[in-house]
């Protein structure tokens, strides 16, 4: 699997949600993934923060309500952190 931001995020999500990485789609969300409950959401936040070395705000934690939205949040947070 690629080391792009999307590839890394895919691995993070698959690990926390205990689903196949390939099965994650942009629209994957708690509406489609049974294991994505409130506890899993916070574990996703922790895992994203440690994988990408970023710290997410409450608004960003709320914003990442699907895989595609989480990717946008991460890309923005990584860009804001700088090189």
């Amino acid at each position, binding site marked *: 699997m690629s080391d792009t931001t999307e590839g890394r995020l895919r691995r993070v999500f698959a690990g926390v949600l205990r689903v196949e990485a390939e099965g994650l789609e942009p629209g994957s969300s708690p509406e*489609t993934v049974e294991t994505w409950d409130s506890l899993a959401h916070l574990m996703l936040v*922790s895992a994203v923060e440690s994988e990408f070395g970023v710290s997410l705000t*409450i608004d960003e934690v709320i914003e990442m309500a699907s895989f595609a939205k989480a990717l946008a949040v991460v890309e923005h947070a990584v860009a804001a952190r700088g090189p």
Partner: protein
Amino acid sequence: MTAPTTARAAWRAAIRTRRAAAPRLVRLVEEVVALQPYLADSIAAAEAVDPARFRSIGEHRLEIMDRAAPGGADWPAIARRFVRFSVEHLVLQRRLERTGRYDVRSSDEADERVYRNREVMEGYLDGIHVSLIFWPNHFRFLLFFLDRFLRRLEGAGPVVEAGIGHGAHAALLSRETGRPILGFDISPHALQYARRTAEAAGARVALSHADLRRGLPVRTGSAAGAICGEMIEHVEDPASVLRELRRALAPGAPLFVTTAAFAANVDHVHLFRSAADIRTLLRSSGLSVEEEVVLPVRPGGDPEARDVALNYAAICRSTGGPRRGVS
């Protein structure tokens, strides 16, 4: 349209069929779940407590919110505020479990960051108001209040509410019993919010500003009952607030108190570590617990364990003895 893929999505589809009976409730569920789909789990758990009353009491509360807002309720904004209130709790709870302490170190800090800040406070009040219906533990406490506390009120005299906040309990008490209420709060924004709630509900509530850390401006032994909801964990010395409430109560009059142990929020200051901690405090403040409901925040948690997030509610009475107060 494809079939729902999760139990969560199936529940959401099912609640949509209740739109005719509870239009505001269904609308708000839709708005909340669109923003943060996993919060459907909490709302579904609240509904499961008592589906019929979830709909009737929930719709009634939202009708009051609708009437209280100038120009009608802005449901997308209320949904955003409730989502923020819920997610902030989750994030702060995770931090508490790592650090073993609340973020806010003093009630003065909470006063400055929350109670005096109009924007923060209005969002917070909408959030906690909706949590009365959408958080299963808060909904259970609301039923405990309606079913168990109100029937214990006897004799003449007003009911005192210390930390009136959104004003929902006072409005419900007025509707169910016709009793007058004296409501106090440290936040000028809460007093405005509670006033709008009372007016929308046609409730008799007299509101005054009071810093409860410095006493309760009520005559000794004059109250037919008292309410103190989600307040004592916001001050450094909860015993002083409880002693003041006890002083205000007429002999034998009941106190309805709710609080939280090891459960974080933006303005929680006093960290109770267990239900036993809370009982000890009530007893040492001259109150005996007549009935209580202790609920773990996370399903399956042990309500008697230490350092497990809990919601606690009790109906208390004075154990007698001298009714000394600080004022």
